[in-house]
Every structure is written in structure tokens, then in C-alpha cells.
């Protein structure tokens, strides 16, 4: 790991002020992507601004039809939260299959969303649930936030403070895990609302997390796995690597979407 200067602000304002002073800085959330990347010397920021001691970035709140989760909330906290289990159980279940127990005790929702790894789980939940990414400067709709692999709408030094999820009537996440890395080979989050259905796919797309409007419309008509018959994910837009080729991933999108719909539909 290359050397860096370490800063530990206690408010988002302080963190933003610090960030504005340094040209080559990174925010440190749970560190479970950034630190391994720095150890590999794939990243070498000269300044690290640790968000770990900022109380205002934590916590889970339910207010009416919105579940608001602080950016520094850890995966294990989301998985075990009674509020999340009650409002959006699919989100707690998603958090419970990220990494392993130790990773879930450190990794954070905001860190995962800001990183937008093409195989990370939370981007699929944010996009399918039509979440709002709240930063220290503005509110960004998930549809505008995720802009391709490891690319988001965040500007330099902008800090995610909370993520606000509309509470769906039914939702589920179906994940086909890479057994070695635990990342999603394909993960599909399906959410049903009073005014329609949204779904999002992670792990599969060559341009990162994506929705399939054709599937959403079919599911809005008939929220059942058979509604998806005849609709296929576009193979030429799928990722292809040593773990799975594009055809396999495209096939898995159909399989995992059906499983997610089945699971969501069986929820009261």
C-alpha cells in the first residue's frame, strides 16, 4: 500500500471541507473495496478521509412509505434491522448475502453504492426500488445515479449521506453467487408498487446495473414468472469472463428474474 495522510472528520461538513483541500483524495467508508484496491496498488490516494466517525451518516428510519438508511450503515445492520425487515424484507435479505459475516460487519451501503461495482448487490436494490441517493449537495434519482461500471453521478468530493427507498408492496432479490468471490454472477431485484413494477439486474450487464422495461411492463400486466415467457436479456449487452460467458449470463437473467418474481409474489 502506498503511503497516505489520514483524516477523521466528525461531520459531513468537515469531511467535505477536507476533501476540497486535497487533489488526490478518497473517502474511506467500510474499506472493503478501497483497502484491498490500495493493497494491490491499483489505487494510491495521497489523502484518505475516513467517514467512520460521522454519526449523522448512520441510522435507519422509517417515515410513512419511505425507508431512509444512512450511508455508513453496515450490511449487517441492514440485515438485522427490524425496521428494514418490516418495511422491505427483500433489502434485509440482500444485505445478508453480501460477502461473508466479517465483510458485512465492515462494509457499508453508501460505500457500495458510491463504488458501483458491476457485480455489487445494492445498486440493483436502489434501481429497482426507485431509491433517491441523498448527498451533502442534492438528491439524485437512482435512474440518474448509476452511469456505467464504477461510474456514478457523484461529483468530486460529494458525499452520499442517506439513501431513501420507497416501500414497495412486494419485492424480492434473487442472486446467483460466484461461489469464490460471493459477488453476484447475476442478481435480480424485483419490486412491485401500486403504480407498476420495476426490476434491476446486477452482475450481468457489460455496462453495469440495468433495468429491462419490457420485463417490467409484462410484470405490471401479470405479476407471475410466466409473464416473462418470450422475453430474453440481450446477449450482446452481457458481460463475458472466465466465470460465465454472455449467453450464460443472459440465460441466468431470465432464471433469476423468474425466481425473484416467484418469491415476491408469495409475500403477503
Amino acid at each position, binding site marked *: *500500500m*502506498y*503511503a*497516505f*495522510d*489520514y483524516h*477523521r472528520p466528525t461531520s459531513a461538513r468537515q469531511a467535505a471541507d477536507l476533501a476540497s483541500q486535497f487533489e488526490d483524495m478518497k473517502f*474511506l467508508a467500510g*474499506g*472493503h473495496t478501497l*483497502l*484491498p484496491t*490500495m*493493497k494491490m496498488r491499483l489505487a494510491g490516494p495521497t489523502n*484518505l478521509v*475516513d467517514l*467512520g466517525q460521522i454519526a449523522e451518516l448512520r441510522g435507519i428510519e422509517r417515515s410513512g412509505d419511505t425507508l431512509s438508511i444512512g450511508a455508513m450503515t453496515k450490511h*449487517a445492520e441492514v440485515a438485522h434491522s427490524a425496521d428494514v425487515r418490516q418495511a422491505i424484507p427483500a433489502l434485509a435479505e440482500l444485505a445478508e448475502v453480501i*460477502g*461473508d*459475516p*466479517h*465483510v458485512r*460487519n*465492515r462494509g457499508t451501503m453508501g460505500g457500495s453504492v458510491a463504488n458501483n461495482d458491476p457485480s455489487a448487490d445494492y445498486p440493483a436494490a436502489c434501481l429497482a426500488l426507485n431509491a433517491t441517493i441523498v448527498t451533502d449537495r442534492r438528491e439524485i434519482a437512482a435512474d440518474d445515479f448509476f452511469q456505467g461500471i464504477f461510474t456514478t453521478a457523484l461529483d468530486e468530493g460529494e458525499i452520499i449521506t442517506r439513501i431513501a427507498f420507497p416501500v414497495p408492496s412486494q419485492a424480492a432479490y434473487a442472486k446467483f453467487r460466484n461461489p*469464490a468471490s*460471493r459477488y453476484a454472477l447475476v442478481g435480480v431485484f424485483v419490486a412491485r408498487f401500486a403504480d407498476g413494477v420495476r426490476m434491476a439486474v446486477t452482475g450481468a450487464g457489460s455496462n453495469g446495473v440495468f433495468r429491462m422495461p419490457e420485463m417490467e411492463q409484462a410484470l405490471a400486466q401479470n405479476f407471475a414468472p410466466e409473464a416473462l415467457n418470450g422475453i430474453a436479456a440481450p446477449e450482446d449487452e452481457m458481460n463475458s469472463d472466465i466465470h460465465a460467458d454472455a449467453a450464460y449470463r443472459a440465460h441466468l437473467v431470465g432464471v433469476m428474474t423468474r425466481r425473484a418474481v416467484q418469491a415476491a409474489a408469495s409475500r403477503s
Partner: protein
Amino acid sequence: MATVSLTVNGQSVTADVDPRTLLVQFLRDNLRLTGTHVGCDTSQCGACVVHLNGEAVKSCTTLAVQADAGVVTTIEGLAQGGELHPMQAAFREHHGLQCGYCTPGMIMSAVDIVNRKGPDLDEQTIRAELEGNLCRCTGYHNIVKAVAAGAQAMAEAPLQQAAE
């Protein structure tokens, strides 16, 4: 340099460290607590698992400065008064190891599982909860038996459990 103050196995320690010092390096190199191992160094294997503020974490993927003001328990902190912790005793009794490299992390994870899920653990739960710990020798069978037995023994020895 950055100053780190921690409570490690009940003792207060303060040191000036290079900010890039990993928690596992701090434990092993500064404090000479070499029971915590570095296996893969890529957050996969779990040989480096310690408890930070009561939660099992991979100390190879945590900076020492992130743990500042925290409470750390390592494998050296489990035994009390020369008596093995019930989980350590169970690993010995059930031969839950061969080379022993993964064992400190396995035991720290196992104690964490019992702290979170209680002493009555079925095989499926133990196997699922140990997914962040790799053993290249045993095939896990005796580790799973040891965790189940150790969990029961922890319930019967509440004083030792509380001592953590």
C-alpha cells in the same frame, strides 16, 4: 504518523503508527500478538479474524487507525487464567484442525457465531456462518463438530463467556 489508542485483550495500548498500518500488522508487529494470522491478505480466508467492539472482522482489511478508541479481542485474549476458552478446548477435543493456520480465525468466528446466535447451532447454520473462513486441510467436518460442541460448552461456562 497517526496515534492509535486501543484496548487489546483488556490492556490499553497507545502507539504512533504509519496510517497505512493494517490492524493485523499492528497486532502482530507492534504488539507481538502473532496468534492472529495473515493467510490470503485479500479478505477471503479469515485467518486474521479478530473481534473489534464485539464484532468479528477481518483485521487484514481494517486499518489500525480505523480501530482507534476501540476494543479488540484476539485469540490470545480468549483463555482465562491458563484455562482454554471452551471453544478452544472443543477444537482440541474434536480435532478441529490439522496444520492450525486457519484455527485462530475459525475460533474467533465461532465465538462470534455463538455470541450472535446462541449455543444451539445446527450443522447448516455453522457451515453457512463459517463461509468467511477457509481451511485447506480438514474438509471442515471436525471444525463443524468442534463449533457445535464449543457452543454448548460456552453455555455451560457463562463466566468465561462473559470474560471476553
